[in-house]
């Protein structure tokens, strides 16, 4: 237990420096001082992993100097307070954690230090004042500074964790340092990488063309007839985009949830053969660049597509363009997003306690009644989260409505063209994005209300060896009937895609050729240079693989950590935080891409043109799936499991790792698979963030598609699909199975 303040171990001076007391504080204080005294304060070097600065004038050269020399040598006097806020907490080292001064000192210096370090970066930028009005108030300045480097980064990290340790010492979050730190960490990250860029672009909605703030303009735009019009009820004109989007989102959300549930039930609760095959086949669409599906659908159902040609030949029905419009969007989106619902639901369906089902049966409920009254309601967190994901994804998706939407206008396409169209109108884009967010927010609260405060814990600390009740026949048949068309469809589409890579011109000239693969992926052996990666695609291929492999574990980790915080901890502003985490996911990628450039192209955080910005963008765009899957799975775990671990002396981090994580394996797989795959197939945000050194596969493929080189695009996509299949296999192998000790349990 904590040593009282007068114990010999902690006499004044630096008494406990080698004691294990306050170890955490020493660690972060040390890191912060290291950042201040040793590492370059600014990031004026050649890239994050470039160490040119070590030999190129460090430590005295202006751009490479550490914080302390920036103050003393380069006259950057405004950094003095940083030193002050770093000195103060040294005194806390001599106090015990229960001493009120300890908490106060850390809160004060950590909080103010963090706020100061960050805001000075914003106030003084690359060209002097960060905001124009500062120049008006203080007059022009000669001073300037670059983006933050290693030094500033470590100092900020140190301040942040000092602050959270102060909070923990005050008893916040049950005094748990790890959880306090995690919450602080997640909030700061979400604020910087979600709220800041999104806010940066949404602010456009209040500005007119000259950049003045005009609220009435905003009102005029947001109530505009083109958004909310109801003409489709009174005439043959179309309704406002908002209604179109809403209808599409709800339909896709419902359909993907039902399909996902059908697959989850089939795989876990029936004696069906070939489960592995069904699982893989149902996941196929998630691993495809979206426009490839759209293209395949056109070749299949378009006016000149196989189905229409057949109908004309067999029944004389003239081919029509029925695919284009809501129908086409629905088919494509349901194909694309069902796997996500499936991933979320499979763990949830499987975790429903067999005993509860058995209990229901002993209470004279039939299998049918048991399913409807016990099993299904216990799956609610999964159903709600699957629906939410489907709804949001559908609203934010822009590729499918673009290719298949025809005259059916939705918010995401309108937003895209408001930004990049001939009539560039970022204000309108921001307004539309706000409308879209209003829908997301509504869906978010609707699912909250639907779940209510009920408990869905079905994995408790009491061993439960029961056998899952076999699915009632009726339900099983319903599941088969729902899933079968989807399966057939996705197999046909995939057959076509693979086929498309091996023919001269997909959809027109179908003679076999390997030239697309050769153009993209040829290897050449030369006596002089050894192996040459000649194919045009190799460069973007390796970059994509690397960026995806880096971002996937970080995304899953941060997602599950956030889920843990949201499910298991209580803190002020939790609901707002939860909604903020979904912002970057709910908004179309185009908006995010532009927002990221606006926010991160200038100091203090200048990361455009690097691989870092891609990784960061993927993390925060894909994290919500990890969060939703984590929340759904975690609400099935009895909280007394973590509490037991805590009272047995395990830290929260250990508890998370040893108790929760093994029980969350299906959610972990879902998060990893999703984030890896999404990083490989995402387009819209990426278009704006790729750079010469970091070109991504999808932006390359899109370039090919834009100019009609479908063969090349599809050959490349097919290779990506294979890579992703292999990656999914590896992920499953690496994460392993969840052991619940139930007699029959199927794992994803």
């Amino acid at each position, binding site marked *: *237990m904590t040593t009282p303040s007068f114990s010999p171990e902690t006499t004044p001076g630096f008494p406990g420096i080698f004691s*294990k*007391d306050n*170890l*955490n504080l020493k660690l972060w204080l040390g890191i912060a001082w290291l950042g201040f005294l040793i590492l370059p304060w600014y*990031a004026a*070097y*050649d890239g*994050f992993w*470039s160490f040119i600065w070590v030999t190129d004038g460090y430590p005295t050269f202006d751009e490479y100097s550490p914080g302390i020399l920036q103050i003393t040598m380069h006259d950057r006097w405004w950094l003095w307070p940083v030193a002050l806020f770093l000195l103060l907490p040294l005194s806390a080292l001599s106090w015990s954690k229960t001493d009120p001064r300890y908490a106060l000192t850390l809160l004060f210096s950590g909080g103010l230090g963090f706020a100061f370090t960050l805001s000075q970066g914003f106030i003084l930028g690359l*060209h002097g004042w960060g905001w124009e009005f500062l120049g008006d108030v203080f007059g022009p300045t000669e001073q300037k500074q670059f*983006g933050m*480097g290693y030094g500033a*980064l470590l100092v900020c990290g140190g301040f942040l964790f000092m602050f959270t340790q102060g909070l923990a010492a005050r008893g916040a979050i049950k005094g748990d340092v*790890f959880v306090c730190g995690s919450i602080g960490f997640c909030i700061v990250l979400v604020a910087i*990488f979600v709220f800041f860029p999104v806010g940066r672009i949404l602010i456009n909605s209040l500005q007119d063309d000259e950049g003045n703030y005009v609220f009435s303009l905003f009102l005029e735009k947001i109530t505009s007839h083109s958004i909310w019009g109801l003409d489709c009820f009174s005439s*043959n*004109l179309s309704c406002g985009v908002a209604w179109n989007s809403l209808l599409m989102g709800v339909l896709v959300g419902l359909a993907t949830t039902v399909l996902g549930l059908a697959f989850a039930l089939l795989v876990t609760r029936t004696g069906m053969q070939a489960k592995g095959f069904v699982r893989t086949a149902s996941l196929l669409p998630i691993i495809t660049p979206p426009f490839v599906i759209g293209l395949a659908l056109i070749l299949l159902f*378009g*006016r*000149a597509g196989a189905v229409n040609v057949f109908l004309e030949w067999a029944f004389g029905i003239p081919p029509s*363009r029925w695919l*284009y419009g809501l129908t086409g969007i629905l088919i494509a989106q349901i194909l694309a997003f069902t796997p996500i619902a499936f991933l979320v639901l499979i763990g949830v369906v499987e975790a429903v306690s067999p005993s509860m089902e058995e209990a229901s049966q002993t209470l004279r409920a039939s299998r049918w009644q048991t399913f409807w009254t016990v099993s299904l309601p216990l799956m609610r967190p999964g159903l709600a989260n699957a629906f939410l994901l489907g709804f949001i994804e559908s609203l934010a998706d822009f590729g499918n409505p*673009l290719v298949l939407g025809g*005259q059916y206008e939705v918010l995401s*396409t309108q937003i895209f*063209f408001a*930004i*990049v*169209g*001939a*009539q*560039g109108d970022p204000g309108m884009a921001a307004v539309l994005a706000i409308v879209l967010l209003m829908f997301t927010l509504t869906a978010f609260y609707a699912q909250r209300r639907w779940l209510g405060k009920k408990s869905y814990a079905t994995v408790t600390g009491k061993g439960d060896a029961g056998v899952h009740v076999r699915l009632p026949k009726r339900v099983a048949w319903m599941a088969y009937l729902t899933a079968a068309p989807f399966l057939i469809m996705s197999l046909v589409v995939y057959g076509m895609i693979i086929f498309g890579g091996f023919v*001269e011109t997909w959809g*027109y000239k179908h003679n076999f050729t390997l030239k697309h693969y050769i153009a993209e992926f040829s290897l050449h052996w030369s006596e002089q240079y050894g192996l040459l990666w000649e194919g*045009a695609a190799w460069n973007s291929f390796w970059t994509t693989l690397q960026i995806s492999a880096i971002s996937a574990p970080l995304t899953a980790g*941060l997602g599950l950590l956030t889920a843990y915080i949201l499910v298991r901890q209580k803190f002020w502003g939790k609901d707002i935080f939860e909604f903020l985490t979904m912002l970057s996911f709910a908004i179309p990628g185009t908006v995010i891409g*532009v927002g990221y*450039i*606006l926010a991160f*192209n200038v100091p203090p*955080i200048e*990361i455009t*043109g*690097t691989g*870092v910005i891609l990784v*960061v963008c993927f993390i925060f765009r894909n994290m919500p799936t990890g969060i939703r899957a984590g929340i759904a799975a975690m609400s099935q775990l009895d909280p007394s499991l973590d509490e037991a671990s805590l009272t047995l002396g395990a*830290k929260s*981090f*250990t508890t998370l790792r040893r108790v929760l994580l093994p029980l969350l394996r299906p959610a972990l797989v879902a998060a990893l698979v999703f984030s890896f795959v999404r990083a490989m197939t995402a387009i819209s945000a990426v*278009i*704006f963030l*790729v*750079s*010469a050194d970091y070109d991504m596969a999808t932006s*390359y493929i899109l370039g*090919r598609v*834009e*100019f*009609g080189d479908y063969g090349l695009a599809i050959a490349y996509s097919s290779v990506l699909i294979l890579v992703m299949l292999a990656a999914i296999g590896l992920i499953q192998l690496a994460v392993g199975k969840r052991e619940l000790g139930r007699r029959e349990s199927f794992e994803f």
Partner: protein
Amino acid sequence: MVRFPFLFNLSEGVNMKMIRLALLSMLFFMVAVPSFAAGRLTYYCSTDIPWCELMKKEFEKRTGIRVAMTRASSGETLTKIRAEKSNPKGDVWWGGTGDPHLQAAEEGLSQPYNSPKLSELHDWAKTPHTATGGKTVGIYLGALGYGYNKELLAKKGLPAPKCWNDLLHSAYKDEIMMAYPSTSGTAYTTLASMVQLFGEDGGFNYMKGLHKNISQYTKSGSAGIKASARGEITIGVVFVHGAVKQATKGFPIEAVAPCEGTGYEIGSASIIKGARNLESARKFIDFALTADVQSMSAQVKSYQVPSNKNAVSPPEAPDVSSIKLIDYNHALYGSKAERTRLLKKWDAEVKVLPR
């Protein structure tokens, strides 16, 4: 039994893992600024990939300057340059419809440069240069027109269209695709061309007539001809070289340069304001206007008309002399005010009409 109050249990390895995790994740949120070193060029390209790469490799070969290339459509590139305004990362922007280049010039995103090669250019290539005070220059010309699917046309027994006014014929009802003028540069060029060709009222009347026959407005300019190539629609309104390209890919597409005369786009190049490698960027513009460089475009199946008088036009390229080009007023129709006015008018008077 004693339990220690410290927070990370060293022997368990949690401590180190935790630190590593935290550090690693923080490491990723850092910064890198492209180098200022001479002999580099950041090049934004808005044509198709092979042409972009050809230009990059050829420029590197001739000058020894290292080129970092990013490819995106012209709308996207303009958006990117606009967003990067406060700290520009690109040096030169080459290719893509002239319209966004004009917009960039008007918004002050590009800077003037008078290349010594200007004298070798066709007059039409110099109009954007004079209209913007030297901020952008023409590199190729693409005439507006349309393309139709020969097989589909024959199957339906429709007459082959030759002029703009042919498209108004009721036989083509639901057989034509074009893009929304507000989302696509191609479609805006169409609107502006019709206004210049038939006068403002006549132009809008034409658009209203065309509207009756449109099956679908697409978002992207080239979507119409791509759909036509695959037999999804009979006629797509598009730049002539786009239609030619589909034909050379083997699709049954016939390109039409309408008989009344037509507008055109001028593919342009601009130097971005605040370019860090200004010298390299200027060298690139000179290079891009050189005759033999422009002659290379046929190698990568691009069939626009080159802007250098001495460049060899690819045989597949539409013969400019056979196309009646109108005197397109880039200064007026490239300005934001006029564009916004025309688009609003189109939305209000054409889009709302029943079809």
